[in-house]
């Protein structure tokens, strides 16, 4: 009864630890303390052990001469180059295979994903077999397959298979002529740039015209024609010449031309084909996620099949497809590190492999390598998040 007498102004007393706000603060302080002491212990432990082994730390080694060979590089590379240059070579090789891999995997994945939805029994079964086979075999094994079972069993240099256009394939990869455009050829590039701008303007104009007069314009075919005809015309008028430097069988190997080594090809095939199977599933799921009522509504309005897909189905499917597609792109980029297993000189192989072994700077090399993948991944997801925010449905 005394509690009643105290009146409603005074809340019943609680033990302070039962207050959720205070409890939350206490937990956070405790976790923070544990984390800080753990990190301090790791750093102290590492420093003590390194000192005991008389090892120095720091990034000064980056400017020293590396003194090893790299079999494939887009950047200039010699034994006299520094570890920093080796780092950059590793990054460019990773980016090269990741970029081409993403383009190929996207095209292949979308094609197969749409094929799985085909009403043609043979096409959809083939797509299903592809997805279920490729997706369920480990990527490393697939890389070994392409490298050891396919590309390394090609004939020796002297018995190379001849491909069309002065190209060859053998144990050491694919060799094809290198185009050597002369100075005049710059005009052709300018022509191509003008054509691209022209196509963009044309698309805007066609859209405006449709909105203003209701008349449709064959944008796709016209764009294609502009893109092909304009640079070709410039080429003819400017009299630009392109010489080709074909690969010629020398004493020990082909000389001249461009060589794509089997390590690169095996990694590219493996990554693209493997990731395409996941992208195919993503695409199929995205299209199936669009309610069939949407198709029916578009049909009953008289929209033709192409317009139905372009204006109604695809924009909605893309909302579903993009987030998992992003994670497939990230997977492909990170999986390119498996190239180390078949000797492709990507970042992990060059920097966390050879450079680390030679310098003994394990912590520095691994940390830098991790940082690169982290930045690449965060950049990709930032771009995809921006895109996703743009296409999100407004519901409230």
């Amino acid at each position, binding site marked *: 009864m005394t509690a009643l007498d105290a009146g409603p102004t005074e809340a019943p007393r609680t033990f302070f630890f039962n207050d959720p706000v205070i409890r939350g603060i206490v937990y956070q302080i405790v976790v923070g303390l544990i984390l800080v002491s753990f990190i301090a212990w790791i750093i102290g432990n590492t420093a003590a052990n390194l000192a005991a082994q008389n090892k120095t730390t720091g990034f000064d080694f980056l400017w020293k001469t590396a003194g090893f060979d790299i079999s494939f590089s887009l950047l200039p590379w010699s034994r006299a180059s520094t570890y920093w240059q080796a780092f950059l070579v590793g990054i460019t090789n990773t980016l090269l295979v990741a970029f081409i891999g993403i383009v190929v995997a996207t095209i292949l994945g979308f094609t197969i994903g749409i094929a799985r939805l085909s009403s043609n029994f043979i096409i959809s079964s083939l797509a299903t077999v592809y997805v279920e086979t490729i997706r369920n075999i480990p990527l490393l094994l697939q890389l070994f397959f392409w490298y050891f079972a396919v590309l390394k069993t090609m004939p020796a240099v002297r018995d190379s298979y001849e491909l069309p256009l002065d190209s060859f394939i053998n144990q050491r990869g694919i060799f094809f002529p290198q185009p050597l455009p002369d100075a005049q050829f710059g005009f052709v590039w300018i022509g191509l740039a003008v054509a691209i701008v022209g196509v963009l303007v044309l698309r805007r104009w066609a859209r405006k015209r449709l909105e203003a007069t*209701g008349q449709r314009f064959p944008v796709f075919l016209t764009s294609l024609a502009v893109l092909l005809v304009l640079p070709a015309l410039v080429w003819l008028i400017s009299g630009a010449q392109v010489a080709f430097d074909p690969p010629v069988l020398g004493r020990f190997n082909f000389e001249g031309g461009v060589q794509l080594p089997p390590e690169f090809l095996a990694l590219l095939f493996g990554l693209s084909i493997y990731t395409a199977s996941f992208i195919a599933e993503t695409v199929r799921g995205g299209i199936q996620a669009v309610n069939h009522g949407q198709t029916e509504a578009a049909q009953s309005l008289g*929209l033709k099949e192409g317009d139905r897909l372009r204006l*109604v189905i695809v924009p*909605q499917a893309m909302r579903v497809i993009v987030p998992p597609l992003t994670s497939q792109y990230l997977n492909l980029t990170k999986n390119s590190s498996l190239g180390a297993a078949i000797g492709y000189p990507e970042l992990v192989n060059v920097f966390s492999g050879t450079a680390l072994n030679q310098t003994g700077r394990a912590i520095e090399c691994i940390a830098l390598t991790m940082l690169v993948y982290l930045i690449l991944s965060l950049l990709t997801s930032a771009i995809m998040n921006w895109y996703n925010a743009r296409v999100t449905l407004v519901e409230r």
Partner: protein
Amino acid sequence: MSEPSQTTAASGQATRQDKATSTKPAIEIIGMHKWYGDFHVLRDINLTVGDGERIVIAGPSGSGKSTLIRCVNRLEEHQEGQIIVNGVELTADLKRIDEVRREVGMVFQHFNLFPHLTILQNLTLAPIWVRGTPKAAAEATAMHYLERVKIPEQANKFPGQLSGGQQQRVAIARSLCMQPRIMLFDEPTSALDPEMVKEVLDVMISLAEEGMTMICVTHEMGFARQVADRVIFMDQGQIIEQNEPEQFFSNPQHERTKLFLSQILH
């Protein structure tokens, strides 16, 4: 019943009068059958819908009502018999199907608005891409119909921001923007909260009063009484009985109809 319908048809929709002669039926279905696999969904359907006629189809669920009207714009394919819409017979010919769909509007139970487009874009999409109407004209038409369904202020919102009743009114306006000669309604009020049913029915009633040719699959018997020229009762894929609303409700002929009416009219 036939006299008032003729007067309203003559007073409204003068533009449609020169398109089609009143003697030619809007829809003719002759001896039509449809199967889903082994299941015989529609059996020997014969139905003629005159220009400006309003028809309500009633019947228990699974009786084939929705399937029947979905055959009229070929969302479903029939296997036997003929369906002729505005003088065009529906076959596998895609060009004919498009021709029919341009003139036949459809309203669905679940609205099926395009969620990624604004209300205005929902309404102008087909006029721009199918009819080739200039955007400005299409938007003017769209605003006209949005005013008719009494929600012009929602034009720039997205479907997800509207209530069910508002969405269904937008769906009706979207079909009307194509200036169809026939409107099909597939249980348009079944997915709505009770307090929203009236706002949708009001739009349908005003449409009927203007002389639109309509086929409505609905359980709203009050609507049937008020606007229908003919009520059709279906069961197990067959048309069991059809009559003027007065006769249909007061003097049903068939046992199955009597049972159905006793169950839905309390």
